[in-house]
């Protein structure tokens, strides 16, 4: 009886270990380029050629990180030796943080309110409005960006935080759809008890529905704030001035500064690494939650 189980799958250990090997290879492919960026950011710019194929930084230094943030000592001789690109990346990181907050907090709040109405309240036009919201996910961004750009320009909001955040701040079809699916799963008894106790829809929403779906709200917060942090196209169209531009726009501008000659690679990689820090922190602190957020927010 016993040997049957192993004869069904020949060499189970070989298969298992080659599976591990392939997974390890993909882990290296995923993280390798990020490590090379870290290596470059920590290397002295003069060693870029000689150390191109090394895995470790040459003459490790924090100088590149400090100089793109504007914290380098102005008297540092290295600043004069090389023709470094000009960038105030500290400003860009602050702008990205502001943009992320301005987008995610109101977006989640407004989307949650609407999602509750779609999930639980009866009103005329509910199906039609929800259908319209859903179809909006099909519209390519560029179709909306042209008229939205003109609107923001007419409002005089070019190069302002409100202009950059406005189109995302009140809702996204995804947020409404996702939260509606969640709210539909609230146990009816909970809400009905509160109803019988005389609670209004507002107190049911704030006291029962929202606390019950803490986890889903955390998921949406992670997805929304990450995509806001990474957003490029729209801020690139309406927020290019140095005072408001976000991380991705600043990196692009920094790269285009030296479009002709050799880019300031160590500076660029320092910016890249700094742009990755919040993501790395999130993954290290809440790895499981982040992974599950992306895993389960997909098809439903």
């Amino acid at each position, binding site marked *: 009886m016993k040997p049957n189980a192993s004869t*069904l799958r020949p060499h189970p250990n070989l298969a*298992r270990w080659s599976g591990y090997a*392939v*997974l390890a290879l*993909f*882990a290296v492919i*995923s993280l390798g*380029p990020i490590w090379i*960026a870290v290596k470059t950011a920590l290397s002295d710019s003069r060693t870029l050629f000689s150390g*191109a*194929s090394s895995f470790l930084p040459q003459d490790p230094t924090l100088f590149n990180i400090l100089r793109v943030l504007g914290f380098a000592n102005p008297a540092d001789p290295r600043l004069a030796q090389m023709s470094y690109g000009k960038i105030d990346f500290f400003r860009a990181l602050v702008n990205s943080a502001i943009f992320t907050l301005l987008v995610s907090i109101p977006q989640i*709040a*407004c*989307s949650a309110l*609407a999602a509750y109405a779609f999930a639980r309240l*009866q*009103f*005329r036009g*509910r199906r039609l*409005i929800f259908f319209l919201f859903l179809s*909006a996910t*099909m519209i*390519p961004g*560029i*179709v*909306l960006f*042209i*008229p939205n750009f*003109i*609107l923001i*320009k007419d409002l005089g909001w070019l190069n302002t935080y409100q202009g950059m955040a406005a*189109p995302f701040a*009140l*809702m996204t079809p995804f947020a*409404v759809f996702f939260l509606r699916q969640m709210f539909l799963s609230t146990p009816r008894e909970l809400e009905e008890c509160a109803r019988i*106790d*005389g609670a*209004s*829809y507002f107190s049911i929403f704030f006291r029962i529905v929202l606390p019950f779906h803490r986890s889903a709200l955390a998921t949406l917060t992670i997805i929304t704030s990450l995509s806001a*942090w*990474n957003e*490029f*196209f729209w801020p690139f*169209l309406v927020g290019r001035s140095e005072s408001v531009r976000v991380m*991705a726009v600043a*990196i*692009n501008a920094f*790269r285009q500064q030296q*479009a002709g000659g*050799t880019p300031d690679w160590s500076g660029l990689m320092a910016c*890249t690494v700094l*742009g*990755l820090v919040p993501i790395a922190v999130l*993954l290290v602190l809440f*790895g*499981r939650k*982040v992974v599950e957020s*992306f*895993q389960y927010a997909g*098809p439903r």
Partner: protein
Amino acid sequence: MSDRKLSPVLSTPPVIPRVPPRRSFFRSILYKDSFCAWIFIAPALLGFTVFYLLPCVRAIYISLTDWNLLRPAKFVGSANYSRLWGDPNFWNSMRVTLFYVLYNIPVQTVVGLLLAVLLHRVGRSVALRSVILAPYLIANVIAAILWFWMLDPLLGFVNAMLHSMGFGRIAFFSDQNLALPTIAAVNIWRHMGFVALLFYTGIQGIPRDIYEAARIEGAGPWKSFWNITLPLLRPTLVFVLVTSIIGSFQVFDSIAVTTLGGPVNSTRTIVWYIYESSFVNYRMGYASAMSCALFVCLTFVTIVQMRILRSSQSELG
């Protein structure tokens, strides 16, 4: 409202009042479904109307005008659309985009499936999944600049490795034939982990006893993948294909950071061309016409896909 709290010491069975106690007009309105509903959806509906619905209508109107933002828009009817029909640049960018999608989707889907099956069979740790998801959490711009650096002909890590192994250096981003596949590869790198995770979730939803039954019937892992995993994964597959094809058609960020549409238009995808027409050359009418055409194409592609993949049906019922 404490007066209506039912005391447990009452000897008679508690009776829930059928009619709520009288409230003021203002308070009673807060208990009406329809009134509350409109308050609940008002902010989102405002955002939807101002930034989705009206712009969509306006985009169609702009596409019927000649407008450079300086002078008032001039209504020209369908002139932009007939010009688009005869514009070789438009067709070139459509072709480039189509090739980008064709490079992207099959590789991404196959790699994603492979990773998902491996994650399911040998390694289920959260750490491994977060490592594989990591590239997806990175901004497009950062992923592009990262690989632009890795693949730099002179200083990049990949070329330095190729060189030290005795191969020639390859100008990935500035070779007319390589630029587009390279950008597609960067996109695959960024997306493969996410796609794998979605498939992994789908595989986890397949009941274990189906595999057990197949194993008892003598099916090996390969056979059970083709006959069980793949068919039962169809809803996930549809979702992944539809969303990633729509996404790939709209590639922009990585081109803006690396090739800017070059060399010789070889990476001038449709969204990049629309961007150039509208925000560099200020031909708002023509750009809108192209964006509306893209919208129609994408809708068509999605409907065809849904039909082919029969998304609404699932073998699990």
